């Protein structure tokens, strides 16, 4: 079964498909490392059809799990429309899947075909708000793209997500495809982080009177402050998976330690005992039991992991002993399997991923200064800050293929946080 492309495994037996297709034809049913199944998106009718086609194609392309074949416009309509498209021709073009989309009033529908099996896999439908190109309209298409990806590959896409980042001291949000950047905080907001339901952000507010953690409900716009430790430094918030508490770094006059406090108010409890060292940037495991963080307890900033009650502290990597050693900004993937972080190599920060299964570290970048990685909800893509163009911008990398794309052109975007998959618009 390992030799099969997971999404369509259940539909066609591997052996049968291998016999049906001559060697060398790229059909998704035969899994080959690094080869993604080809997909054709049929031309979409209507005034907004072309825009919708471009959006869906881009979303599926950014997902890095399928290869979108740009042949749609060259095909005769009969090849790709109707309940019985020309499967044989599509197969010759290298397509393993066909997606037909219809923009109806108030609704967008998609029919997903398995070209090899010559049958419809599934039909999908998403409510489509009026107002082409508006944010809700685009959100509906992102949602559809994610669902199409789920049907094709077995893994839901991550197009219907947003990325929080800091620019000019404010927190901004931008859609996963780089559209609709908008500020969501006033001034001096750093280190935004998402609640797991995508309904709220927390960030650090800097001021002369000290730093504090603020929570913003995105639906109502309501702002509240975490007041459990009012004085000194209160930075780098991270929600617990149930959203009820925030783990953050608090420092007064003897180093900075991790604390945990209920969002609704109540006493804070100390998590780490750093004995005067700096312990910052917590990231909570998806099961809510462990926390990884940056600590300077041995001299250089390094990565550690502990239980959320502060016990069982352990170094995550070999402790760096040379002067250049500097590891920081861990982010736990939503599947719980990996921790991404920044590590200094040859004087420059690079993005690396630690596999928790075998503690193997894979460095993903080498060009310019790259830091503050944050996982997409697919546990595969990362957004991070890179200076490779000369100014700080957000980039997205596929941790499996290394494929890169520039997300922002803001001249000074940093400290990004990828949202969870967002719910459908109400």
């Amino acid at each position, binding site marked *: 079964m390992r030799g099969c492309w997971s999404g369509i495994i259940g539909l066609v037996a591997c052996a049968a498909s291998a016999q049906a297709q001559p060697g060398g034809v790229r059909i998704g049913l035969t899994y080959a490392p690094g080869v993604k199944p080809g997909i054709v998106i049929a031309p979409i009718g209507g005034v907004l059809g072309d825009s919708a086609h471009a959006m869906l194609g881009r979303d599926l392309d950014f997902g890095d799990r399928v290869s979108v074949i740009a042949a749609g416009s060259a095909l005769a309509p009969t090849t790709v429309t109707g309940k019985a498209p020309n499967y044989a021709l599509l197969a010759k073009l290298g397509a393993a899947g066909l997606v037909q989309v219809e923009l109806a009033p108030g609704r967008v529908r998609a029919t997903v075909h398995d070209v090899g099996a010559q049958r419809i896999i599934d039909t999908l439908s998403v409510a489509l708000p009026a107002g082409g190109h508006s944010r809700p309209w685009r959100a509906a298409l992102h949602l559809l793209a994610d669902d199409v990806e789920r049907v094709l590959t077995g893994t839901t896409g991550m197009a219907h997500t947003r990325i929080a980042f800091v620019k000019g*001291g404010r927190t901004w949000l931008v859609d996963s495809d780089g559209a609709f950047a908008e500020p969501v905080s006033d001034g001096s907001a*750093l*280190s935004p982080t998402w609640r797991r339901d995508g309904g709220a952000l927390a960030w*650090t507010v*800097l*001021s*002369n*009177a*000290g*730093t504090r953690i603020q929570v913003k409900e995105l639906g109502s716009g309501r702002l509240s402050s975490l007041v459990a430790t009012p004085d*000194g*430094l209160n*930075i*780098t918030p991270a929600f617990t998976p149930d959203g009820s508490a925030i783990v953050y*770094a608090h*420092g*007064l*006059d*003897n*180093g*900075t330690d991790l604390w945990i406090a209920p969002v609704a108010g109540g006493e804070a409890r100390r998590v780490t005992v750093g004995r005067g060292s*700096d*312990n*910052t*940037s917590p990231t909570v495991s998806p099961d809510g039991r462990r926390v990884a963080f*940056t600590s*300077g307890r041995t001299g250089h*900033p390094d990565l550690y992991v502990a239980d959320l009650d502060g016990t069982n502290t352990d170094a995550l990597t070999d402790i760096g002993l040379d002067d250049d050693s*500097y590891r*920081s*900004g861990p982010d736990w993937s939503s599947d719980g399997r990996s921790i991404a972080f*920044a590590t200094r190599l040859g004087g420059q920060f690079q993005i690396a991923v630690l596999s928790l299964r075998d503690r193997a570290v894979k460095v993903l970048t080498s060009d310019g200064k790259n*830091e*503050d990685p944050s996982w997409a909800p697919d546990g595969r893509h990362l957004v991070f800050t890179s200076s490779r163009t000369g100014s700080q911008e957000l980039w997205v990398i596929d941790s499996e293929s290394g494929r890169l794309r520039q997300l922002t052109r803001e001249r000074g975007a*940093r*400290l990004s946080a990828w949202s969870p998959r967002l719910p459908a618009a109400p």
Partner: protein
Amino acid sequence: MNSMLPTSKRPTRRPLAALVLGVAVLVSACSKKPETAPVPETSPAAAATASTAPATTATTPATPIAPVVDTAAERARREAARLKAREDSIAAARMLASKTAAELKAALVATVYFDYDRAELRDDTRAALEAKLPILRANSALRLRVQGHTDERGSDEYNLALGQRRAASVQRFFTDRGVEAGRFALVSFGREKPASAGDDDASRSKNRRAEFEILAGGEGLAGPR
């Protein structure tokens, strides 16, 4: 340490020299132009104009060409001038006294600097804090905000903790010498508010710093005794 010693002593010598010079300038200015009773000035710019005034009036001598005549009127005039000069010198002394307070303030809020990724106090940092210590001791109402800053290297988030540690080690310098911790508010801006925009070594060394802001008790600072 050695390089900082002269500068820490300078403020105690300079005011004296300036006082003597300032009084001399004002007295000479007044004795030559007694008619236009000079208004006591407080700004250094005005004092500078006053000192240049005699030079300009000297080119246009007064109409009575006769040298000094020892008449009663002249004596009264001289006496008035003398009294005026005395008043002026008192005003000047007051002005200099306030300038001394300004200098005390300058020493108090002078920025101190740190080594890369370190919060430990360097010798020059220690000397600069040493200069602040007597001012804090002599003015018990004085409260300071200590702002810790870092250069742009390293993690933005971790730098906030480093800035806090720098502010805390400044506070510890004073609390170890008997100044109460409650007289300091600590805040960190990490790398967010650089003093110098560049990313060269010179800029970075200016950015790894602790700044001081007077929160209370900054009026009428008494000099160290």
